[in-house]
């Protein structure tokens, strides 16, 4: 551990990135045909898939609410996801806490009041884990919800940041996460407000602000990346549908002749 150098003399990190450089981000929409919406997101080596089912008839009648939809989150971390193979039990507290955070993040953002007495089920599968579990989970869920056509007030984009001496760095890997104080922030980019802040390591108050604000800025950048993917997908869908429709109208005209 002590031999690990988060930032070398050339101002490069252990994986060759600059302090404020993000890992390569990629996302794909509609990865699961059976779900109403799904997305797969990867930040470097961290890969997370989210599937959204619903809004649909609530299975759990006792929990339904007469004025809004119920949001359920299930999280599954693949046993091979981390460096060491580990089977997480169903009631694993860390996973349960993660699910509760994601749920609380999205409940106020989804317009649940449009779907009274229904249920929205979100399944998050962590396939590969190299730091940034929370950020990847939140970003994947945002995209899956957009894909499912569920109305939301805004994107939620999330990013982690860390601090090495006085240098703040963004998007930490597992190695950096276990060695540096880090914070994960989720923002609503349009209003610039934060919905989630999670810090679990010791850090002086005066150092916190810089790291926190950088993570927020990074989150807004990430929103642009996610939006690009969404627009690309929407454009393709729109073109296909228009193509079909235009062709159809032509045909009807010829029919009339």
């Amino acid at each position, binding site marked *: 551990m002590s031999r690990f150098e988060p930032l070398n003399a050339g101002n490069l990190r252990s994986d060759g990135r600059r302090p404020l450089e993000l890992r390569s981000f990629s996302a794909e929409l509609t990865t699961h045909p059976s779900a109403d919406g799904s997305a797969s997101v990867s930040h470097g080596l961290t890969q997370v898939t989210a599937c959204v089912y619903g809004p649909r008839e609530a299975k759990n009648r006792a929990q339904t609410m007469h004025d809004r939809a119920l949001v359920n989150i299930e999280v599954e971390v693949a046993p091979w996801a981390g460096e060491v193979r580990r089977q997480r039990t169903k*009631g694993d*507290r*860390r996973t*349960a*806490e993660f699910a*509760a*955070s*994601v*749920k*609380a*993040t*999205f*409940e*106020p953002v989804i317009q649940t009041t449009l779907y009274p007495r229904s249920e929205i089920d979100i399944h998050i599968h962590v396939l590969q884990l190299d730091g940034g579990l929370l950020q990847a989970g939140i970003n994947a869920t945002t995209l899956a919800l957009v894909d499912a056509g569920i109305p939301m007030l805004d994107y939620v984009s999330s990013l982690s940041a860390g601090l090495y001496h006085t240098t703040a760095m963004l998007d930490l890997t597992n190695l950096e996460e276990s060695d540096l104080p880090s*914070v994960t922030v*989720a*923002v*609503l980019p349009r*209003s*610039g*407000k*934060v*919905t*989630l*802040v*999670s*810090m*679990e*390591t*010791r*850090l*002086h*108050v*005066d150092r*916190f*602000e810089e790291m*926190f*604000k950088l993570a*927020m800025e990074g989150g807004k950048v990430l929103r642009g990346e996610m939006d690009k993917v969404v627009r690309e997908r929407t454009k393709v869908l729109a073109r296909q549908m228009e193509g079909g429709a235009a062709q159809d109208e032509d045909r009807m005209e010829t029919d009339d002749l």
Partner: protein
Amino acid sequence: MPRDVEPSINQRDFIFSAIQQGLRVDGRSPLQARKTTIRFGNSLGWVECSIGETRVVAQISATVTRPYFDRPFEGIIVIHTEFSPMASSAYETGRPSEEEITMARILEKTIRRSEALDREALCILAGQKVSVPHRETNTKIVRGQQVWTLRLTIQFLADEGNLLDCACMAAMAALRHFRKPEVEVVGDEATMFSPEERAPVPLALHHQPLCVSFVSLGPRNTPVMDPSRLEEQLAHGKMTISLNAQKEICVLQKAGGVALPADEVLHAVNVAVSRVRDMSDLLNRSLEEDSRTRVIEVR
């Protein structure tokens, strides 16, 4: 899962309109906490903490066990929290609720992950297992790899809001108050002395983190410190910050809920700093007072 009775619409409207004017139902200002008291029990490491009507008891016991095989030089801390219907009718024994898990996790992060306790100091013998028979009247002999296991049990007696801050305060007070029997190591052999023989020693603590919780209340999401149960139920979001007196943040958790501007988060952190300072002072004062009246050493 029994759902708690939701507050009535009138209650909600009243509290919301009051908070708009900077008032709270119990007469406090938004960033004012209730009265905190700490009471120490007869045995060492038994502490009852109350914030307003919320009451929590923390108790510590220590036993000698083998360490985890991957951490042979560290002692073990086990934190037990259980909600019972005694605290509030909303809780159920057995299956932990989401709320309970979140709370237990924050406590664990605050106490264990921030390394409030020097775990290496809980190690008695790190050497290989040896068996040297030894007999003496009042003392126990321990052999081989041995460490202390501390069990911190947190019992929630009454929930009138802000259980977490209260539980954290009780836990830290209990850790400060507890004494473990003294152990002497000679070679590969450790001797544990009974309290009659040698005075028990306090635990080695690195720092003393305490939790401060805020909720966002009302149409303008006014930050409110030390929420009552009613305020917690009506809140749009909750944020917990745990800090020590050296102004180091140990845990900052705002898990979703209503979105806040960055400045408001930072402002809350600053408020928490001064609140923790007050709480630490109170804790130190109470401990001092207790140690003046308590006889620990028997000579």
